[in-house]
């Protein structure tokens, strides 16, 4: 369950940054991304999947959230 910092990059995409792992990936898709909830399963461009309980109302980025691995 790493702490993940989510921020927008110059192109407006969401970046998924795990400081401890130096992992900086772009988020490809989010299961629930509407005006009232954000979260669920998150797919990154490197193919890994992460999970966070949907947050409502959606958080303001940049922010730090705790994610779970969805693969295992």
């Amino acid at each position: 369950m790493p702490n993940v910092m989510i921020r927008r990059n110059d192109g407006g995409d969401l970046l998924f940054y795990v400081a401890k792992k130096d992992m900086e990936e772009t988020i490809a898709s989010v299961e629930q991304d509407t005006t009232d909830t954000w979260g669920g399963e998150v797919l990154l461009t490197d193919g890994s999947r992460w999970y966070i309980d949907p947050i409502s109302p959606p958080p303001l980025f940049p922010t730090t959230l705790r994610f779970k691995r969805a693969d295992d």
Partner: protein
Amino acid sequence: MTAMTREETQALIQEVLEVYPDKAKKDRAKHLAVNDPSLEQSKKCITSNRKSLPGVMTVRGCAYAGSKGVVWGPIKDMVHISHGPVGCGQYSRAGRRNYYVGHTGVNTFGTMNFTSDFQEKDIVFGGDKKLAKLIDEVNALFPLVKGMSVQSECPIGLIGDDIEAVSKKKGKELEKPIVPVRCEGFRGVSQSLGHHIANDAIRDWVIGNRDGDTSFATTPYDVAVIGDYNIGGDAWASRILLEEMGLRVVAQWSGDGTLSEMELTPKVKLNLIHCYRSMNYISRFMEEKYGIPWMEYNFFGPTKIAESLRKIAAFFDETIQANAEKVIAKYEAEYSAIIAKYRPRLEGKRVMLYVGGLRPRHVIGAYEDLGMEVVGTGYEFAHNDDYDRTMKEMGDSTLLYDDVTGYEFEEFVKKVKPDLIGSGIKEKYIFQKMGVPFRQMHSWDYSGPYHGYDGFAIFARDMDMTINNPCWKSMQAPWLKSAEGEVEKIAANA
């Protein structure tokens, strides 16, 4: 020699790896790679930020070096106490040439060494009392000190001293920030973790100090220069460009920087990051807590400077954008003259770099402006995100080496035969004795600054002075020269 193909480079890596035992070979193979700029992610081809292999020669430093030497050390109006045995502080004293303005020993303390000088009894009975006494002494001897940081050396963590408690107590007593930094040398695999720990200490003990204080008059053009350590005056050469653009540089982190500058940084509009590796942590934190955007910039060489100035200006209004163009135009004659003078002398020369955490990719543009080509590059302590950024800067099929060992680097140089190597003091004399021109790219070989337009002039002169130095033709003793007078490079024979 022309550029090597992918297969040739791969074969070279294989050849160099051949001497290692199987296990070491497997480990080192992950750190050596052939660059492929089309790859988006470096982790597919290179591994970084791993423990160095025991038994090989590495040039990495420790967490204390990363915190005291790099991040905290240049903050000039604080006393940085090397808490522990005397050597760590003394042997690294004033080695990094972080220039600053001030009267050393009166209101600035950059080149001085303060240490608690641990003895056996301090290890046995603990050093907290000694630290408390030392803090009082420093404050009495140097009343103008604005704050102190306690930089732990290895024994502090091993014996479990509570430096936080002492710092808190003394900080209250003296009404000055006293920052305990848990940067014991054994933490992490290189100085990189020391940067991170130092950033976290700044986050916890410095950044929030003036949160409720609105007495500082802000302007819409406030920026902070982060991750410029003012080596040989670099930060000054960068700062004038930003000021000419109409921006106000509130803080310099941390070359020629002060404690109050750091405390005021949360009030700026934009953080400009030069050394991404050592200070991205605090920038990310300020983005999250204060909503300050940050951007990486590069002030090496006119092409990158112009690119960066435009990118910085894009965060502000039209006046600043127009000013950026004016600044670029103002210096155009100056840098064109430098390129016209040195490019013919340096055109086509090939460079291999091996530096710390930023320069292996940042100086590529400056070399290209001089018509030179970087054929191999590597970092001592970079992480994968640095290699992500490097792979796009480097040409196809060039050599990448992470935490390169002494043996590997020598072998690479013998095979690739570069015209110039840019690395540190530990590599310098080996390669000079092999007859290869060499520049220190950590300390600019006691020259500098290299940042900004002013710095580019010095950079170009220094590179020319090194590569075209007549001494490289005299590497062979006259009595060893063959009858035809043919001079062979010693490197080729070695």
